[in-house]
């Protein structure tokens, strides 16, 4: 199971990193979301993996580590706020600059590049 989780973390991290390096806002937001998943599972996994041992007193014979869970719980919500913020930023940038590209080039530069091709 540990190997499975590690594999998931690895793939999600890699995909997230690749996506946030793309040139347009939408994949960057997707990448950040993906990276949040990976980070959350990573943090959660720091408490080691256990089945059927929720940290609810009296529900199980022994309990998994509740601390990473508490940390990750708030991280999920904050991650949503962060994704939303980035999305709002992307929309604002689209409204202000008329482009959803994040490669640092202005609309005019894009147009000249287009012509050159």
């Amino acid at each position, binding site marked *: 199971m540990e190997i499975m989780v590690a594999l998931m973390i*690895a793939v999600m991290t890699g995909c997230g990193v*690749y996506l946030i390096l793309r040139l347009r806002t939408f994949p960057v937001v997707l990448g950040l979301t993906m990276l949040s998943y990976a980070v959350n599972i990573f943090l959660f996994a720091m408490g*080691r993996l*256990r089945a059927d041992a929720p940290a609810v007193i009296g529900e199980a014979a022994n309990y998994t580590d509740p601390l990473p869970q508490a940390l990750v719980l708030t991280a999920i919500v904050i991650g*949503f706020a962060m994704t939303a*913020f980035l999305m709002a930023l992307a929309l604002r940038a*689209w409204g202000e600059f008329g482009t959803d590209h994040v490669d640092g080039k202005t609309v005019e530069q894009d147009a000249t590049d287009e012509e050159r091709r």
Partner: protein
Amino acid sequence: MSVLFAIVLLPLAGALLPRSLQFMGRHVVATAAALPVLAALLLLFLAAPAVIGEGALWQASLPWLPGAGLSLAFRLDGLAWLFALLILGIGLLVIVYGHYYLHKNDPGGRFFSLLLLFMAAMLGVVTADNLILLVVFWELTSISSFLLIGYWSEQSAARKGARMALTLTGAGGLALLAGVILIGQTVGSYDLGTVLASGDLIRADALYPLMLVLVLLGVFTKSAQFPFHFWLPHAMAAPTPVSAYLHSATMVKAGVFLLARFYPALAGTDLWFVLVSSAGLATLLVGAWMALFRHDLKGLLAYSTISHLGLITLLFGLNTPLAAVAAVFHIINHATFKASLFMAAGIVDHETGTRDIRQLGGLRRYMPYTAALASIAAMAMAGVPLLNGFLSKEMFFAEALDTPLYGSLNWFVPLLATLAGMLSVAYSVRFVHDVFFGIAPPALQAHQPHEPPRFMRVPVEILVVLCLAVGIVPALLVGPLLAASAAATLGAPLPEYSLAIWHGFNLPLAMSVVALVGGGLLYHFRMPLFTLQRRWPKPHAPDVFEHSIQQLIVAAAAFVRFVDNGALQRYMAWLLLPVALIMLAVIGSKPDWLGDHSMMPVDGLAILGTALAVVASLATVILRRQRLVALLLISIVGLIVSLTFLRLSAPDLALTQLSVEVVTVLLLMLAMYFLPTRGTIESSRWDISRDLFLSLSIGAGIGLLALFVMTHPGETISAFFIENSVPGGGGKNVVNVILVDFRGFDTLGEITVLAIAAAGIYALLENLGLCLPLYDPDGRRWAKERYPVVLQVISRAVLPIALLVAMYILVRGHNMPGGGFIAGLVTAVALVLQYVANGVHWVHARVPNNYHPLVAFGVALAAVTGLASLLVGYPFLTSTFGHLHWPVVGEFELASAMLFDLGVYITVVGATLLILAKLGKLSVVESGEGN
């Protein structure tokens, strides 16, 4: 020893006075500036019998940063006393002189305040008994001199000169700091006394050459030694009192002071000899040569100062005690004659309106008294007998003859010394003859200059009298002072020396005669030399300096453009590159990835889930341009993540992830609707390989790290939380108890962040005008039927049930999986569903649509709950709980932490709705139709 503090602090405290008394008029300002200096000078003389008479060492110290070896430690020995005398004595004269020099419109308060600040800094440098403290004051002299040079800030020359001086002396100061720290590290103490006593230790250290070079960089920049001499002539844009004070008597002497101060610790090696004496010799000659050709009076004096500083440096570099004595003696003499010459130049400028030698002449007829004073001072500078300059120059010649270390090249030192002496005579003659003798140019005759105000001359008179008196009766006047300061410099018994004027016919005397006669001839036949000089290319130092600074700025800008080209990819790549490198190092270290911690067994469901997540993740990347598909794929990943949490004993996380998933997808769909679909651009091949490298190495590294941790046992502090959850927090769900109780402060911070993010998003989207697309990416027209009836009916039916479930999750959260975060998200999802199904107008007609107060109320409720515990005397956010017996319901537990959780709930609901409703409203506002 508070006297010692008072000597430094009086000018420092006094620096406040002139500026704040400016409104009271010029006389008050000047008096206020002079009084603290006078007081400090009197205190200094009180110390004279002990320090100069008996050779005592006064010390005073207050701890400042003891851990860093820094203390406010001051010392007063002969050397410090001598410099303090120069600083305070000439400072007082300069204040008197400056009062008459400054124009009525010049802000005198600022001038004198800066002057006193500089004075205090300079006193600090010479009396500091701690190396770091010394550097602190050293920097302060650089800064205050920058302000003084740039006093007439409206002049471009003043600004450029000031900037150049600051850049050079500031850079030197940094080098000095580095050198001093190395010395302190070697010796083990920054205490000056200890350092001076550890000369052998320092000189034997392997880093000695580095220390020496760093300290000398500080010295050479400050004392304008070749090749750092070029800033000094351009610092002459300063008002003349500043030039007389900083650039003849004090600041430029700080460098040579440091040579004297560190003499016992650093001198005595061949490296010292080579570096210091050759820099001094080069400066001596270059300065003297350049001085001869200056047409600006102050420029001439500036280069002459450079030359004399070179002479002092050369003497220190010769590594003999006698040369050091001569150097100290020349410091005294140079300060007196050069300060008076600067003041005389200032008087000429003040009365004629020009400092250009070519436009001056015959001033003897208009200001005979000033002419006489300037002539005497210039003779001292030339080294004419019966004046103080002669004595130290004679000592210098004697030492130059005695150079032991250049081997067969020894003869050229006295030769070059004589040559420098000739040049010095020539420019001194030029200074006097071209200004005061000959015939006044017609323009000057029309101007009819006259003698300056009485008291503007007094400082010059005092200094000139000193030049004469020291020249005639040296032993009587400066004998004890020289002995005390030279002894303090050497830190060893004084060598035999004689301050007599007449030593009989000897080689130094012959050199003096040659210099005098040769200098006269040089002046007489100067015209061919001037022609020769004119042919040489003359780089204008400020231009060269500004040009190199500009080039530096251009290079820096190019570097910034390279790193910061406005492209997100570039920033992210720079951030991720170190991460990738660390990950590669981690992978390269090849630890035991699979530890012996007992692993969970794998089942088919787990494999299926993992495979789904992996495939969906990769597919998201590949199909990212088909946005709806990518969105569906990423929500599959999110779903698997929440199932993973569920499987691995984290029901709270699974619930949270699931509800966040819903709002995230809604958010992305809304955004997707607005964002343009056209305009696809391709990354370059190089960019793609860079991104592949980064993502592969980081992904692999993080995955392996996670695997390593998961398969190795570790310590955890969670036992405490599990044990104390019920007795301490009154709840069985440990995760929730941690959130609202043990780590409640964190949670409070977290919901605050949430509230701030919501407010930020609101601000970003406020007044945003986006074009509403009429067609979907495939060119089909969006449906006109915006709110399908089926969805409307179902959503309205679901709302009360969903709210009930949310309440249940909220209330049970303390004991069962649930809590404020999850309940808040569920409520938000239920309400957002109404927006989706029925439209903004429909919802806002029924539900209060102002979510800002809701968010604020939620955060405030959580905070107030925490504060309540303060009222009853417990720390912030301490919780309490009790049990209630409700009829029908039965035993019911009530904890104050639940109120806190309610705050969390309200914040989450408010923030989520604030964000989504604002995004959703964009479409309504723009299309103008709505429901």
